[in-house]
């Protein structure tokens, strides 16, 4: 019985979501309290497991048994190994903090809070399913469920058209990747003969490299969708239409990292030999392209949440690149530190947005450092971690990735360094514009410090943003045998990242000064317009892909409808019948003599047959 305790990670949030929605949809305070309690309970359980509490292996339930021998039956089991439990710590930890933050953030919101908290709980359930799944089928179920809960939460304010559209866009874009993922799962079943992680080990050796490449790349498609990699990255910036705590939990810290987690999980269970060179180069290139493009686009965004969204894309690109360079431990390390500091940044942005009366444009803020110092301080902690100032968590994980890149492939190392410079530039720009100088709008002028339910999670995350990179936490968090957090190691990566850090800060200071400017000096030229318009990728998708598909699809359907169904089947048969009838009606010409002629000829033929062909009786 006790060994099945990990199932609580899944069932508790699920049951709470059901109760919230079915019983307490009219009393949001109870619903919010229940959800928050369940998040804290799962967090506590997770901490207990991490501290060495053992309950044995959880039972595996056979879900779809197979009658014939030798076929794989689908089962539902949990893995509670180090990798999964550490990931659970991130999910439940940030989840609990976001629940608490939401209590403050959603206060006074007119929408249905029970629905919001039920959505959060559903998300906790689905995310735990992905993390704890012991086979790919179960991962896929969680995969779809997080897509669904993300849809619910992005579209929480569904009366706004933009939110409803963004929810739809996120869901549909994810479906594209999920389809590849599904093919990948089936390929895995065909190639490895199993989809259970524990049974995949060591089977990659005897398999043709082309098959392995196809399998890994198909599975990677799922990560491209969920982790919003190029070319399916378009949904993530739009997903910022959802409430800010949701952006922090789902679209920065946990769900979008699920793709990276899944890839690392595969790397661990299949073995790195399953990741062929072609597959690795593909994965690393996609990650690098995403990192560069997203960092470029982030430089010219004005919405504080969009800047953070593009920064998330860029950091996810970093992680995926690390996975492609077979540096799963560096990727997971960056995932951990990034989860804390990016959640911090988003929650900080959420607090700022609430305090500025729902103003998201950084050019209408300004001077916030004086008005809400504690929030801004926390936000700065996150920023320092993100731009990898030595001593903050992001520095260590970024160093780990750069080290891995330098060892494997210097090209990716220099790309990573360039992205680091860009990251520093846009984050410094954000901070200078929003926090320094004078308030440029009345919303910012009237801003006051956020309430305790918002500040508390911020402070907790701020602490984590600093310490999560140090050895005593990091070695404990990253479950790879022999993993060591990088300290202050002098060497090429250190100098290069210091160089890009300095470059980014100096460039941003030169361009934006100390917050005296009221408009962006870089805006106006064609390059910045292109970056502002997201390099026209969304436009191309809208016009070319979706418009084209709809246009041509409509034409094909029109052709099938008009020509085939209406023309050939309906009208064609009618025409045939009519013509045949006309032919027959020519015989019925109403001329008595004609009938007599036919009857006469008939009789002659009849007599002829009777008299000459049938033998005499």
């Amino acid at each position, binding site marked *: 019985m006790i060994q099945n305790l990990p199932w609580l990670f899944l069932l508790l949030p699920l049951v709470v979501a059901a109760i919230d929605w079915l019983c307490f949809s009219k009393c949001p305070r109870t619903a919010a309290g229940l959800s928050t309690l369940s998040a804290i309970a799962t967090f506590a359980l997770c901490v207990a497991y991490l501290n060495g509490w053992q309950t044995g292996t959880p039972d595996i339930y056979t879900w779809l048994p197979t009658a014939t021998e030798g076929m794989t039956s689908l089962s539902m089991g949990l893995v509670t190994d180090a990798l999964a439990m550490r990931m659970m710590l991130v999910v439940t930890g940030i989840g609990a903090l976001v629940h608490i933050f939401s209590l403050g953030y959603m206060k006074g919101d007119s929408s249905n809070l029970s629905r919001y908290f039920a959505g959060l709980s559903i998300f906790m359930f689905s995310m735990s399913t992905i993390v704890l799944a012991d086979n790919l089928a179960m991962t896929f179920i969680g995969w779809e469920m997080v897509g669904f809960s993300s849809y619910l939460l992005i579209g929480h304010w569904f009366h706004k058209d933009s939110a409803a559209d963004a929810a739809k866009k996120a869901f549909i874009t994810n479906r594209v990747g999920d389809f590849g993922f599904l093919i990948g799962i089936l390929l895995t079943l065909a190639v490895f003969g199993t989809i259970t992680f524990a049974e995949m080990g060591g089977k990659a050796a005897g398999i043709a490299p082309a098959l392995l490449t196809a399998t890994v790349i198909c599975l990677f498609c799922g990560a491209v969708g969920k982790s919003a990699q190029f070319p399916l990255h378009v949904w993530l910036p739009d997903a910022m239409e959802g409430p800010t705590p949701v952006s922090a939990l789902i679209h920065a810290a946990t769900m979008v990292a699920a793709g990276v987690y899944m890839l690392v999980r595969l790397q661990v269970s299949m073995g790195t030999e399953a990741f062929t060179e072609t597959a690795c180069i593909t994965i690393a290139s996609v990650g690098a392209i995403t990192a560069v493009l997203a960092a470029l686009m982030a430089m010219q965004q004005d919405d504080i949440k969009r800047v953070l969204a593009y920064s998330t894309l860029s950091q996810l690109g970093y992680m995926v690149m690390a996975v492609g360079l077979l540096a799963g431990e560096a990727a997971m390390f960056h995932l951990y530190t990034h989860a804390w500091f990016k959640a911090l940044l988003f929650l900080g942005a959420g607090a700022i947005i609430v305090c500025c009366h729902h103003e998201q444009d950084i050019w209408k803020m300004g001077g916030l450092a004086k008005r809400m110092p504690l929030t801004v301080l926390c936000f700065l902690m996150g920023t320092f971690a993100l731009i990898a100032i030595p001593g903050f968590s992001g520095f260590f994980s970024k160093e780990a990735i750069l080290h891995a890149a330098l060892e494997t492939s210097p090209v990716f190392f220099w790309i990573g360094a360039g992205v680091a410079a860009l990251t520093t530039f846009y984050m410094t720009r954000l901070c200078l514009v929003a926090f320094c100088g004078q308030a440029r709008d009345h919303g910012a002028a009237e801003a006051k410090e956020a309430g305790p339910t918002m500040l508390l999670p911020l402070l907790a995350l701020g602490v984590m943003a600093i310490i999560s990179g140090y050895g005593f936490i990091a070695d404990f968090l990253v479950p790879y045998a022999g993993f060591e957090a990088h300290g202050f190691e002098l060497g090429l990566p250190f100098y290069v990242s210091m160089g890009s850090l300095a470059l980014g800060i100096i460039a941003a200071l030169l361009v934006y000064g100390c917050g005296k400017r009221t408009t962006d000096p870089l805006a106006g030229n064609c390059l910045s317009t292109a970056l502002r318009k997201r390099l026209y990728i969304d436009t191309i998708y809208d016009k070319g892909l979706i418009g084209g598909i709809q246009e041509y699809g409509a034409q094909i359907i029109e052709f099938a409808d008009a020509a085939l169904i209406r023309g050939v089947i309906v009208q064609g048969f009618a025409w045939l019948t009519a013509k045949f009838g006309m032919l027959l009606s020519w015989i*019925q*010409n*109403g*001329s*008595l*003599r004609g009938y*007599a*002629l036919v009857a*006469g000829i008939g009789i002659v033929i009849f007599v002829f047959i009777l008299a000459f062909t049938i033998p005499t009786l």
Partner: protein
Amino acid sequence: MTPLAHYLIFSGILFSIGLAGVIIRKNIIVVFMCLEMMLSAANISLVAFSRAQGVNGIPVYDAQVLALFIVAIAAAEVAIGLALIVAMFRARKSVESSSLNTLKD
């Protein structure tokens, strides 16, 4: 004694003329007369068979009885047919067969 074939050829010619008349002529009364001619052709061949099958100068009377039946039926047919033609003339003021095409139009 005239051979049977002569009778049959005569009967065939008479029948063909009757059939041609039925097919070609428009006037229903003439068509009607041609029909009677075809019946007569049949009668002639029956009587010819009756004589040809006879033994010792005595014909087989079965066929001749049949010929009498045909004459009787033809008489009844004339009664009905002429009545129909009169009725048709009253309705259409015409005895042309080509005017009997109301159903087609």
